[in-house]
């Protein structure tokens, strides 16, 4: 017995070192995979669950994945954990709803899953249950997902990596698998599965557009590699700021990743040799449509107080209209949503913090909103065509959450 203990003692430092670095690795990977965003609420202990996720099928609650033996994953093995993350299978055999993005995590490396598992096991167990998810019939029948999983569970493919740099490959893994960007940025079919033939070409989530991340679309919207990396790191760049569902991505995930990883993601999305990003010059008022010219005064009345009369914004306070990526989206639903609903107060990195943007739904009727959208799109968005009144009403009626 003493000999065994001695051996253990001799072994331990190295083991500890290996273990603690696996835990550190796991902590980092958990950030990249952004587990905490769905497995915590705004004021819960980390990973203690409780976040309601609105889906077309009802409300799904993020579970408690602290190592609590009663309400968390304290009884999980590393295998159980991998099964849940990569295949959507709970330790008791039930299916997880694909709100858990196992369809993207499907290609997670085993050692990465183990590292995240090791990290989670070091956390303080929180003895509190997350609310039970109970969807309406038939979606409450989890076994039905087995069929769905057969069809869609393993569909995610990674593009061939031959000839691609290590940085590109790393970026692919971060974007497609850990970052699970496709879960929002890929359109879904009627069964709610990602359409793998349209990967990262844009999706609509709860009334907001997660825009296309295809290289040519990013370039058209004014992105370049450096700014995209900055955007990941700080949530703010010349092209605008992260808001709505993208903000938690910064808050919980991308701000903690390394510069190398930000660059890798930018390289993957824009390509190793990206083309030039589109420069859109500001159009003078006189050249705009009648509707857009009318919209100018509403811009001055309601927007210019923060975004400035000529759209230059206020540094650290309000983004500029010039160069703003959201204005360049041909599908203007995001622009319409933020004008109607506003944006909550957001803490970015370091000292950066933006006050709430008010929502102007009550101040603008459909006609005024149309004029304002046209003013913004035409002046700074490089989108010369007017939106029509039916288009605006239609978009407006699709409420966000």
């Amino acid at each position, binding site marked *: 017995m003493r000999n065994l203990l001695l051996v253990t003692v001799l072994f331990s430092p190295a083991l500890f070192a290996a273990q603690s670095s696996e835990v550190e690795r796991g902590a980092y990977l958990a950030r990249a995979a952004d587990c905490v965003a769905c497995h915590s609420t705004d004021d819960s202990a980390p990973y203690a669950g409780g976040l309601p996720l609105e889906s077309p099928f009802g409300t799904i609650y993020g579970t408690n994945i602290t190592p609590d033996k009663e309400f968390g994953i304290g009884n999980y093995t590393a295998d159980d954990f991998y099964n849940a993350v990569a295949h959507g299978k709970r330790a008791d055999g039930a299916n997880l709803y694909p709100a858990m993005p196992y369809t993207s995590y499907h290609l997670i490396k085993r050692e990465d899953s183990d590292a995240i598992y090791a990290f989670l096991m070091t956390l303080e167990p929180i003895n509190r249950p997350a609310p039970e998810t109970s969807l309406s019939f038939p979606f409450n029948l989890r076994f039905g997902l087995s069929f769905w999983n057969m069809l869609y569970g393993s569909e995610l493919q990674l593009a061939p990596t031959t000839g691609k740099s290590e940085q590109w490959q790393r970026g692919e893994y971060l974007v497609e698998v850990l970052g699970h960007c496709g879960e929002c940025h890929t359109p879904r079919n009627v069964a709610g599965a990602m359409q793998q033939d349209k990967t990262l070409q844009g999706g609509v989530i709860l009334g907001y557009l997660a825009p296309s991340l295809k290289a040519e679309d990013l370039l058209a919207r004014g992105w370049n590699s450096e700014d995209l990396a900055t955007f990941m790191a700080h949530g703010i760049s010349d092209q605008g700021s992260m808001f709505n569902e993208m903000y938690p991505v910064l808050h919980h995930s991308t701000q903690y990743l390394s510069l190398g990883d930000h660059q890798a993601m930018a390289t993957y999305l824009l390509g190793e040799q990206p083309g030039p990003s589109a420069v859109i010059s500001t159009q003078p008022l006189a050249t705009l449509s009648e509707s857009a010219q009318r919209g100018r*005064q509403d811009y*001055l009345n*309601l927007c210019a*107080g923060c975004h400035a*009369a000529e759209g230059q914004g206020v540094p650290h*306070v309000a983004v500029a209209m010039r160069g703003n990526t959201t204005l360049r989206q041909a599908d203007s639903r995001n622009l319409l949503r933020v004008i109607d609903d506003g944006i909550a107060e957001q803490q970015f990195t370091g000292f950066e913090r933006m006050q709430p943007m008010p929502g102007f739904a009550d101040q603008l009727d459909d006609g005024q909103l149309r004029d304002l959208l046209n003013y913004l799109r035409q002046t700074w968005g490089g989108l010369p065509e007017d939106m029509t009144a039916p288009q605006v009403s239609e978009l407006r009626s699709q409420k966000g959450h």
Partner: protein
Amino acid sequence: MAKRPLTLQINGKLVGPLEVPDDLMMIEFLHEYLNLTGSRLGCGQGICRACVLILDKPDGTSEEVRTCITGAHFFNGKQVRTIEGLAQRDASGAVSQMSPVQQKFVEHFSFQCSYCTPGYVNAATIMVEKLQRQPVKRSELEQEIEAALGQHICRCTGYVRYYQAAKAVVEELGLVREG
């Protein structure tokens, strides 16, 4: 900058038409064109609420509007009240009777330097008028006050007496129902 005509009703009186730059903020219009300086500039960026006036809407409800980030022309054809118009005044302009909200703030020593006070008076006035249309449940009274006043910044008082006074005026006017 282009100029446009602006006409509106302030404290019951018609103002304008006045030719005013199209990008002028309302607080600039109040201060530099009408010499109504009671709506105070605290941050000028829509955060502190010292600048708010009362916008009276056609449906009979009112809301506070931040004059520092809202264009003057937004109010074209609209009706607003500023702090200067809330108390009753005699022919010479002296205050003869404060509004119930003003009276309560004074009795409760609710302010110290008073730079933020006009904003608080306006916000509390809107709340009181809302409760006059529909009284609040006692169990929700504190929340109601927090919703009305919680965004206003005060650097002197620590907020306690503003809140206590708001409670007192609501109770005294009988705007609390049980529940």
